[in-house]
């Protein structure tokens, strides 16, 4: 701090500067709030009229210009749940290794580097990889299974991150008490550490689920199609999905204006699903922190 500047400005002036800057910082925070509220409110107002029981439970009709979005909802649900069935065990096991077994050193640094960079890979690149590896090389075709495996890799870093955080909150004394009673490392992890960390890991699972549900670019080449005449019945079927449906209706075809209500309705269903899961995770986490 330049002392001359100090005397020049005077204490009152400096406090006024501070007040003004506080206002600007507060305003910046409010811009985020405004963005969230405006997007949600807009979709709510525009989308709500489109929502009806039949919109949620019927197949699309008249080459997707009328009818419901049941296959998209089911496709997204199947993709999300399938992905978590693969990614959650893998992610938790990775986190257990990183947090409970690994010692600092080159191997650990390498694994962390891998996870960090995997987290940074653009989702469209995951899509390319899924296309080349699962769809083509393994011959799975554009299918639920290809999509699930692609998305599982995409969401793995999220699961590992939150699971590690959950493991770190388990007090060291728990482990020591267990070792003191003669338990092995694995018994300690299975019977003491994991049960204590499970609620936190579930929060991560919900966040991962919501990330997967909204993901579009990674499923464009691997799982999602414009239209399926029937509901998916096996892992080999290609599916419709909510995010891809929005994209297709909003950009392709000649009936873009006519299908606007359907687009708003689908977008509303998607954000209710995604933000609902996120809110659940946030509230659950707050509940856990209060209990601790």
């Amino acid at each position, binding site marked *: 701090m330049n002392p001359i500047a100090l005397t020049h400005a005077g204490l009152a002036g400096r406090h006024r500067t501070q007040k003004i800057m*506080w206002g600007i910082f507060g305003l*910046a925070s409010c811009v*985020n709030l405004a963005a969230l509220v405006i*997007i949600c409110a807009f979709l709510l107002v525009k989308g709500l009229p489109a929502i009806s029981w039949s919109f949620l439970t019927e197949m699309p009709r008249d080459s997707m210009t009328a009818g419901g979005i049941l296959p998209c909802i089911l496709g997204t649900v199947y993709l999300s749940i399938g992905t978590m069935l693969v990614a959650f065990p893998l992610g938790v*096991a990775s986190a257990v290794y990183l947090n409970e077994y690994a010692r600092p050193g080159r191997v650990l640094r390498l694994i962390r580097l891998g996870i960090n960079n995997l987290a940074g890979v653009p989702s469209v*690149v995951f899509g390319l*990889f899924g296309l080349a590896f699962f769809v083509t090389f393994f011959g799975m075709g554009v299918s639920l299974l290809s999509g699930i495996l692609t998305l599982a890799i995409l969401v793995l870093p999220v699961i590992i991150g939150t699971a590690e955080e959950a493991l770190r909150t388990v007090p060291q004394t728990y482990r020591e008490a267990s070792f003191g009673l003669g338990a092995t490392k694995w018994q300690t992890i299975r019977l003491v550490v994991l049960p204590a960390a499970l609620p936190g890991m579930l929060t991560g699972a919900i966040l991962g689920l919501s990330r997967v549900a909204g993901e579009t670019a990674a499923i*464009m080449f691997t799982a999602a199609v414009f239209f399926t005449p029937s509901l998916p019945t096996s892992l080999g079927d290609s599916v419709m999905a909510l995010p891809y449906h929005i994209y297709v209706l909003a950009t392709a075809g000649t009936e873009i204006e006519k299908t606007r209500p359907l687009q708003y309705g689908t977008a509303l269903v998607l954000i209710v699903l995604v933000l609902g899961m996120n809110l659940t995770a946030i509230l659950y986490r707050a509940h856990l922190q209060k209990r601790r």
Partner: protein
Amino acid sequence: MVLSRKTKDDLIRYAFFLTALSSIVALGLIMLYLFAEGLPIFKVVSVKDFLFGSLWYPTSDPPDFGIFPLIVASLAVTALSSLIAIPLGVMTAIYLAEIASRRVRDFFKPVVELLAALPSVVIGFFGMVVVAPFLQNAFDLATGLNLFNASVMLAFMSVPTICSVSEDAIYAVPRELKEASLALGATHFETIIRVVLPASLSGISTAVMLGMSRAIGETMVVLMVAGGAAIIPTSIFSPVRPMPSSIAAEMAEAAFRGNHYRALFAIGIVLFLFTLAFNLIASHIAEKHKQVGAATL
């Protein structure tokens, strides 16, 4: 056969180790398959012509595979969105970490998290149906789907990343540094500008790199609102076609393992290398300037 407790424990440890390697294996496979599918394009077009060629007409006869306009578009969109997202994200982080009361913070933190959770396709859709017509009318443009629109939408996708990582960095500034500054008579604001920000600069730089990496790789937003013209932008209202949108828009029509398909994978390689560079710089900064107490300042 009954295993001894020791052997069993070692086996389990080994199994966990193998699972932990899955991320690296996945990353390795991604690189391998990108390169395997993309590199053959360079038999048709040289690396230099591919990266710096200014014509992208992959379906004409003969086709042109110059992705320079796409690279410029990606960089332009990323730079412009950073201009919006960095001040917004860092100021929000300062507000939450230093100024806001506990109750205000408990309200705003989930807001930022929910903003991060909005699916990109929804943000792209919003940009298409609300922001684009607005821009078109307000500035009397040919199309509201352009570089500026895409940058604004992308900014709101990278703000949460920049904000939460910066906030952690600001929190990590040792308390005694702030107290020393306050004790010398600096106001809280002066302390933030002269002490807290310089001390957390490495963390904030990491945040910025991660935010930019997110912006350059983001697909749906640029696919839906950037306008899609593969030309070098001449103003912030030019329609552009960043790399991810080219891949996403054209893959469906590209013949399997044809030159166009290969070229799209090669764009994937370029995009992957860009994000890899951003992430490596980010983790390098985070690693090198790790703040461990006041002594390392």
